[in-house]
């Protein structure tokens, strides 16, 4: 028995030591050496905030952060990666800021820094097939399978609602796939994140229910390795709010 347990203990200790070493090295030096560079991480699968068009990463969040970098006199480097990879990269300081339609919560704020929301009031909606009776009340979803996109506000909110069976899938495309194939009864998402789908395929085959009083707000997440970035970015965003730049971007991307 001892012979069997011994290697496990060694592996566990190695795992612990390596994570400690990684953390110490992270704290000691900034990975980003160039002071004039702003390294932005995004997940370009989330239209209209960040997505790929004609081989370029574009979107509402991308426009704002590009303008922020411009106003701070920095060059910008945008790195596209899966949402899952953004968080450890931010913790390690490989990227300085995430611009990907992220919603701040007090729990997340323990690990990263957040700017104030640059877009708020994005309405949560529940989408069902038009062949089913329209939803009158969230209670209508009790006992039904409901898709949400993993980690987004719809997920965080619906997880607190007891009754529906929550099914967490990665992207809006998978949400509509499950809905259209009868693998789920409803798909709950922020309105702006499903807007591109509706623009393409129309809303005719769906019933849409507005979830009262629940909104999504979007901020930038900044690495704790670069605390000095928070006031600088916040100041630039505030200035853009005042001179109408953000309003213009909202109009450009059809966001209200």
């Amino acid at each position: 028995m001892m012979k069997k347990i011994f290697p496990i203990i060694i592996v566990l200790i190695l795992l612990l030591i390596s994570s400690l070493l990684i953390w110490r090295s992270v704290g000691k030096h900034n990975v980003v050496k160039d002071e004039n560079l702003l390294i932005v991480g995004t997940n370009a699968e989330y239209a209209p905030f960040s997505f790929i068009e004609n081989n370029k990463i574009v979107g509402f969040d991308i426009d704002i952060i590009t303008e922020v970098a411009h106003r701070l006199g920095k060059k910008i480097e945008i790195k596209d990666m899966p949402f899952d990879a953004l968080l450890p990269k931010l913790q390690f300081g490989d990227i300085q800021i995430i611009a990907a339609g992220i919603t701040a919560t007090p729990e997340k704020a323990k690990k990263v820094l957040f700017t104030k929301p640059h877009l708020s009031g994005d309405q949560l909606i529940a989408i069902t097939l038009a062949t089913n009776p329209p939803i009158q009340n969230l209670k209508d979803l009790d006992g039904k399978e409901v898709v949400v996109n993993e980690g987004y506000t719809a997920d965080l909110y619906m997880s607190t609602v007891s009754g529906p069976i929550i099914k967490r899938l990665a992207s809006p495309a998978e949400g509509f796939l499950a809905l259209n194939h009868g693998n789920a009864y409803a798909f709950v998402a922020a309105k702006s994140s499903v807007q591109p789908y509706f623009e393409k395929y129309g809303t005719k085959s769906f019933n849409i229910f507005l979830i009262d009083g629940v909104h999504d707000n979007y901020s930038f997440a900044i690495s704790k390795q670069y605390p000095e970035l928070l006031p600088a970015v916040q100041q630039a965003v505030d200035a853009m709010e005042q001179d109408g730049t953000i309003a213009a971007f909202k109009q450009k991307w059809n966001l209200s």
Partner: protein
Amino acid sequence: MIDFNLILLYLPNLLSGAWITLQIAAIGCTIGIFFGTILGVIHAGKNKLLRWCVTVYVTAFRGTPMLIQIAAAVLLLPQLGIYISDFWAATLAIGFNSSAYISQIIRSGIDFVGTGQIEAAKVLGMSSIQVTRYIVLPQAIRVVLPAIGNELITLIKESSLASTVGVMELSKQANYIKNRTFDALTIYFAVAVFYLILTTLLSFGVHLLEKKMRYHAEN
């Protein structure tokens, strides 16, 4: 630093994820061994048509990604009028995928048993089912047990693919926690430890079984 308070706070999530992972692995492995053994015996047998069918099956399941097989099971089974939960659809896909690999392991074990023994048993008047059951399989399984143990450990780790269709197994719970706390490193650490415990328990079980079989063979 690794935030142990966070691990403690979300321990119920991790435990329920580990329990689902264990269920997927156990059911998938039962299907894999049962079905894989049948396929392996057929593949090592003489019937050409059946052998060809097994070859097609193995080619299909080994030649396409398990990720696609799981997605196909979840999306296509309801279209065929088979209504099962996502958990079962994913677990069946994993089990049948694993059976393709196990069938080849079993076949190699059967090839290991010499034809001399099989002919001798037939001369003694045993039917071919009896020969397979009492002469070939006991020896073949003893030979291939380490390889099957390996396959099962792979199965535990590959069960994480069920997360893509929404099954709340261990790696999906990890995402769930990560998306709420934004502490990726702590969660990666905790989940690695959990998988390590699961695979170690399994390899310990296989080790015991090997010992027992060796004991039987020697006495």
